């Protein structure tokens, strides 16, 4: 079953208590952060701490992703040399702007993997798009390598890069959001929305998540564990949707045995895209469609 990425919880890489407890909140993914959450004079300590926690801590079933510093900074290469050999589920790379830069990054990663005798197909890449140039190039970036299995929009940095005011409705980055979603969907990869910064505004978070879901985001980045349940609730299919999806898959399997690809339920045509959507609904509801 495909891994869910409704929520990706940021955990500062220099905070031992938060790193230790990160797995208990039920987030689908954990982003152990070596970049913006860590002060310049703590980069070394964070790198060591994150390394040790990946090796020893129980994160239950959460996907583990490490956000490294950009390769153009003094810390990026050291981050990769420390983290890549541990083969977390994914590496998140900030401020991706071009395929050339991505090619360089992948080469560095694969060289490290070769040095340690590791395969190239296990650890995936999450790319952050957080500049206007990155948004312009996002389709090419998303399709560049099979290792890229998610892209995400960094709303705060993008707002700064565009030199616009951050507003609650996110209107300034709305076009970018949709561009990024399109690039991801066109390449069949996940796409994660930016964080909602006001942790006390539950209703605002719910509204923004509903919008993100509506325009196609797979999930949303999270800066406080209290935000997780709200996002999961938004992404949880309704009972009616689950029942409908279950019926579609059941009929699909029955018809498939008979060699029929397109069929009808209650007079409405069911074809491959509808079956695909039904499988997504069941995945979100944690129902194993293979057993139907």
């Amino acid at each position, binding site marked *: 079953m495909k891994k869910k990425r409704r929520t990706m919880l940021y955990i500062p890489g220099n905070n031992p208590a938060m790193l*230790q*407890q990160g797995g*208990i*909140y*039920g987030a689908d993914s954990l982003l152990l952060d070596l970049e913006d959450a860590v002060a310049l004079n703590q980069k070394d300590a964070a790198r060591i701490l994150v390394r040790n926690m990946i090796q020893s*801590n*129980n994160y239950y079933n959460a996907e583990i992703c490490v956000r490294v510093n950009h390769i153009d900074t003094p810390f990026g290469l050291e981050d990769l040399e420390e983290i890549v050999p541990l083969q977390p589920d994914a590496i998140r790379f900030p401020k991706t702007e071009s395929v050339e830069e991505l090619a360089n990054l992948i080469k560095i990663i694969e060289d490290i993997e070769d040095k340690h005798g590791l395969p190239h197909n296990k650890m995936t890449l999450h790319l952050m798009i957080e500049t206007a140039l990155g948004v312009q190039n996002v389709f090419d970036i998303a399709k560049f390598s099979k290792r890229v299995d998610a892209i995400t929009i960094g709303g705060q940095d993008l707002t700064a890069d565009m030199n616009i005011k951050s507003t609650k409705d996110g209107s300034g980055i709305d076009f970018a959001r949709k561009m990024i979603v399109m690039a991801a969907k066109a390449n069949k990869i996940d796409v994660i929305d930016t964080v909602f910064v006001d942790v006390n505004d539950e209703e605002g978070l719910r509204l923004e998540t509903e919008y993100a879901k509506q325009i196609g985001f797979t999930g949303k980045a999270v800066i*406080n*564990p*209290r935000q997780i*349940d709200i996002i999961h609730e938004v992404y949880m299919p309704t009972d009616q949707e689950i029942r409908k999806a279950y019926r579609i898959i059941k009929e699909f399997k029955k018809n498939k045995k008979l060699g029929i690809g397109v069929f009808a339920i209650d007079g409405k045509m069911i074809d491959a895209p509808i079956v695909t959507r039904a499988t997504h609904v069941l995945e979100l509801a944690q129902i194993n469609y293979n057993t139907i």
Partner: protein
Amino acid sequence: MKNVIGREIPEYIEGVGKIDMFVGAWEKLKKGWMDEVTIPPPNKAKLPHQSKICKTLEEAIIQTSPKDGMTVSFHHHLRNGDNILVNSIEILAKMGIKNITLASSSLNEVHNPILKYLKDGTITKIWSSGIRGEIGKAISEGVLDLPVTIHSHGGRVRAIHTGKINIDLAIIAASAADNEGNATGCKGKSAFGSMGYASIDTRYAKQVIVVSDNIVDYPCIPISITQNFVDYVVKIDSIGDASKIATGSTRITKSPIDLRIAKLAANVIEHSGSFKNGFSFQVGAGGASLAVAKYIREKMKKSEIKGSFILGGVTSYGVDMLNEGLFNTIFDVQSFDAAVCSSLVENSHHIEIPAALYANPFNCGCMTNKLDIVVLGALEIDTNFNVNVITGSDGTIRGASGGHSDTASGATLTIVVCPSFRGRIPIVKKAIHTVVTPGESIDVLVTERGICVNPLKPELEENLIKGGLNIRKIEDLQEEVESIVGKVQEIEFTDKIVGLIEYRDGTIIDVIRQVKHHG
């Protein structure tokens, strides 16, 4: 010798006598009565129109003819805002009274100043449901020759009925009183709410002083304490600071871990089989407990479930649920939030109850016996689900038994909520320092790292699994905690017993030993 839960307890303690060993949570109740003889309350008389008014607390205390070896009692409804206990003990000390047995329903940090009277022989014995602050630390280090006795709220009533606590003088703080001693905690500038723990003292004490900063015209209404039990009435400037009752604990926590635990606990309740129309409910006021109420409130609204009653310590959150019609009644033995006072006065379905009705196991049915669901905290819990709420990780007395064992015994579903470790201190352990509530009366443990069901409750576990909850063995959780925080160095104790943990039925479930100091 070891009692039934394996705690090593001497059969005889000098100055205490023969120890009545704990035999099981419900064993002594099965008979249907209490073996111990009940003492009669004192007979007293007053002449018609005789004044009870004294000018000062000192004058009132002098009127009661205090003597060495007396037992003096207090109630703790003002919690950390209380002004009365310390003042009263200071007066008795100035009078040169020695060997006092202090029987306060609980002791808090605000009572730290009496520590010097434990050292100089003014106070030599203590009965209480909880001891916090410097007093608890000093007792753990052996400041008293005789062990303190920690009882439950229900157990205190039983101990007074049997004369184990034989009160010579009860000093009762009231936020309003009249000149005959009719009194309430619900009105006035220092209003603190229910006086549930004070009622037993007034009935059984040989002499009773009501102290108030608000003497009102006769009669004082509503009447929590009635004049026929009161000897003297004193007006003072301030009985205390009611704003310190709650000390912020009655706000819903924002701690992600507490909220995580609370959410899991609410899911346990939802799928337990006990979450249905007419269910009764009790939660504590702090941390995760109150957050459970928040989630249960949401689930009740969503499922259109209406409860029967809320019991015990009451917060404004409970009052909100009453006003929303989610529960029919509140039975209030202790108000955790001064904001509930107006509800107690104005809402006939918000009822003040005495501790005897709340939790005394030896009557025709205390209200804890009617509880469906209770959510409790823990300082430690062992792999047999035994719970410690009295001694901290350093082995010193710092908590309160309160109604923990009373409610755990009575409720159909008893849930303990706590983090699996705090800082680097494990909470879920193989062995705990002190047992206050026996594991046989605990059904579920909920921590941030998962839910554990007592193996004595297989049907409950089945319900929770059917509800989609992930259940794990408490032994596995304990091992995981140990793998995170490491093995904790055991605290060293001397042989001296500094505390007795009395189970609600009067038997001794555990003892607290003196912490050993090196160097």
